[in-house]
């Protein structure tokens, strides 16, 4: 098992290198805007543009730039400076990480509880009105675009512009350390909005899996042993049905930790997602590189973690 983990960790390092290189190639060789020109202002001053280009190191060949970037990253954990405002990228990213984590973790908890709950209910009452209604709602939940849902939520429930003013509106996020109550209430709507499509998907997935599992022979055995139906469904049925959910959950959470762009934008939560979007629009390569690497890091580790955890769940895959 240890060897397996070590091997995977090596692979992780390689992946991160590859991601950083590909990002660099895309945004350096095919940039959508010229960072030096953006910084130089609008007066026609070629000497200034050239000087800025030199300051930013953009006049070096690409491999020199990439090498310098990686050297700083590996030896000094230095992500460089934003082309846009000169702030260290590491500071930009890490100051925004708590917001993204708050959003992702809260939504994850919500969609797990709701998705699994609804999935179980639908699975043990198949083809009833309850089952059909919840699966129908789930379909709507999956189809609704997050941004639209967010706007609808704001126009319905936000305390400043909503019809039923009960929750704080956009731009009300404060860090947990500053004011826990305000932090919590400001995230209720974003959590719900973000969780909807996941909860819907998970409930449908779980319902399908659990229905299948409940037709398995070992469930019949469990009932034949005289176990209560509750124990049969939860301990025997859910235990089997949950494994694909765990896999997907790990990946979904990993992706979200890298920033939920749309939700962060509509609610103005200062997270990684918004940062990555604005940096792409401005061709701010060091920030783009930083956010992409962070996102890749989360996804890769989520993958690794999920694979290891899967071996815990399913003893059959342990001996390879």
């Amino acid at each position, binding site marked *: 098992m240890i060897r397996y983990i070590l091997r995977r960790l090596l692979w992780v390092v390689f992946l991160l290198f590859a991601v950083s290189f590909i990002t660099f190639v895309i945004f350096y060789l095919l940039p959508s*805007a010229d960072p030096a020109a953006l910084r130089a202002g609008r007066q026609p001053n070629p000497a200034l543009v050239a000087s800025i280009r030199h300051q930013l190191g953009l006049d070096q060949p690409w491999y020199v730039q990439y090498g310098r970037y990686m050297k700083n990253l590996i030896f000094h954990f230095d992500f460089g400076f934003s082309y846009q405002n000169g702030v260290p990228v590491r500071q930009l990213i890490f100051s925004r990480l708590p917001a993204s984590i708050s959003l992702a973790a809260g939504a994850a908890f919500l969609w797990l509880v709701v998705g699994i709950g609804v999935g179980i209910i639908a699975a043990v009452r198949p083809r009833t009105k309850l089952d059909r209604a919840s699966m129908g709602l789930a379909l709507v939940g999956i189809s609704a675009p997050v*941004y639209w849902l967010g706007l609808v939520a704001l126009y319905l429930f936000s305390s400043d512009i909503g019809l039923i003013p009960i929750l704080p509106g956009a731009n009300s996020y404060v860090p947990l350390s500053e004011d826990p109550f305000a932090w919590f209430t400001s995230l209720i709507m974003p959590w719900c909005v973000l969780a909807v499509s996941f909860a819907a998907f998970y409930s449908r997935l779980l319902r399908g899996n659990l229905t299948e599992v409940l037709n398995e022979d070992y469930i019949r055995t469990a009932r034949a042993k005289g176990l209560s139906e509750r124990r049969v469904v939860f301990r025997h049925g859910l235990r089997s049905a949950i494994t694909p959910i765990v896999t997907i959950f790990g990946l979904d959470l990993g992706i979200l930790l890298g920033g939920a762009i749309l939700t962060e934008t509509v609610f103005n939560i200062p997270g990684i997602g918004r940062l990555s979007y604005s940096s792409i629009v401005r061709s701010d390569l060091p920030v783009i590189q930083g956010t992409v690497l962070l996102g890749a890091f989360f996804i890769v580790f989520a993958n690794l973690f999920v694979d290891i955890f899967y071996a815990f769940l399913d003893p059959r895959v342990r001996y390879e």
Partner: protein
Amino acid sequence: MKSIRVCSAALLALMLSLTVVACGSSSSSDTSTKVGAVPAEQSLTGKTGGNLTVVASSDVDYIDPGAAYYQFTFMVTTATQRALYSFGPDDAVDAVPDLATKAADVSSDGKTVTVKIRSDVKFSPPVDRAATSADVKYAIERAFLPTVANGYAGAYFGDIIGVQEFQDGKATEISGIDTPDDTTIVFNLNRGTGGVVAGALALPISAPVPKEYAAKFDAKNPSTYGVNQVATGPYMIEADAKGALTGYEPGKKINLVRNPNWDRATDFRKAYLDTIKIEEGNDDTTVASRQILSGNGQVNGDFGPPPPVLKQIVNSTPDQLALTPSGGLRYVSLNTTLAPFNNLNVRKAVLAVFDREAMRATRGGPLLGPIANHFIPPAMGGFDEAGGLTGTGVDFLKYPKGNLALAKEYMKKGGFPSGMYTGSQQLLMVGTSGGAAQKSSEVAAAQLEKLGFKPKLRLVTQDSMYTKFCNVPKAKVVICPNVGWLKDFADPQTILDPTFNGKNIVDVNNSNWPQLNVASVNSAMDSAEVVVGADARNKAWAAIDRQITAQAPAVPWIWDDTANIRSTNVAGVINKFNSNWDLSFTSLK
């Protein structure tokens, strides 16, 4: 200030939010009494105290006042920094002495500019001492440092003797700036552009910076003075005891608090508010506008309400709206170096056919400003001399709705006997995707099609449109529909020179989009640069405006107003020079 840079994310969000908010069409008839216009003389009294929230979609361009170049950033710098000259709320043309004690003294040959400054203006903690002329000198010197890289220093202060040696590293200071005593500063120029220099001293570049405190920050690459800056104005960005900013989180917020060392008796500013919180990242401008209008103590920062919301405000609560000329204009530039627009008559035909009212409708209609008929905008010197609202008199700009017959006449003169364009090539047209800008570019394309042109409209992000296409002559873009220009300060040279002077055509960062290079125009500009005295300058540049208009290098379509909104409990005062809220005069009711 930059050419119109509305956050493209805001425009994208606007496009999406239009699915929720009903989209209204604006009327095409002109209103005679302008709803929401800022009165000529605003009430400048108010209650002291309270917090104002400025709702913004993006960040400032630079937190360092020595590099700042956005109108939105100037909102902050005019509250925290005392430049030599500043603009009070009601006068967008004549600056008042701020750190200076009286108007600048420009010699008759224009080669010397002398300014006397106050001795009683102190820096905020931890510097605490009074500002001197040496601090102003350092402020201008540091703008030329590569670690600061101010975007307009070269344009307006490049003629100071010794700048080149300083930039090349051969000198440690700019020899042409003299400080004979603590309250006197003299600029010695190698050309007679003293009139321009005097006007440019109304920009934050001239706000004093203490060298002994700032030099260590400026030595870093890039300079970190911005996040450690000190203030001379009534407000400062919240900072710790060492001067490091705690109130600035890039992309998130800027917190302004009172500067404890500011002396009310030395300043024309009132500074009623106790604190100002600027909250950034509000990309969805419809939601943000609604929050401001129905909320408390809020105003807009760097975005205007989108057209549907604007329409609603006009119909229901126009007193929450403040419209003021932006000091700029929008136009559609035609590349004069590429066929078919290298032919003057063909260009005149395009200007004649353009339905500029349709273009204006994409921004919100007549409410947002008059149709532009030449290039110097209203409330600037030279505007009236160049023909004012009605224009210079040329027939091809006489018809705001366009005149197809006249256009066809010009096409015939341009070598197209049928009156329509018969060439086969597609003309590359690059616009900004999303929101009102995209709509404007689409309307522009439709106008060209009326004469048989085949524009190939490519839509990209705003930054890309500028830095990869329209600002790069090599990209050979024929039409740029989403360009425009804002004044830098109250001198018409700042509108016409970077944009239509042939010597300002450069490979990268070119702002002379039509690449107009007419010898007579160029030499007229050379002469006008060195004219001294506001009246004479206005006359000279107005004449150049007429010359440029006659060349039909672009279709001017609106001298737009900036729309600003406030919560009902805000006694808002607009700074007409900057066309946004004046934080030093606004108060809460």
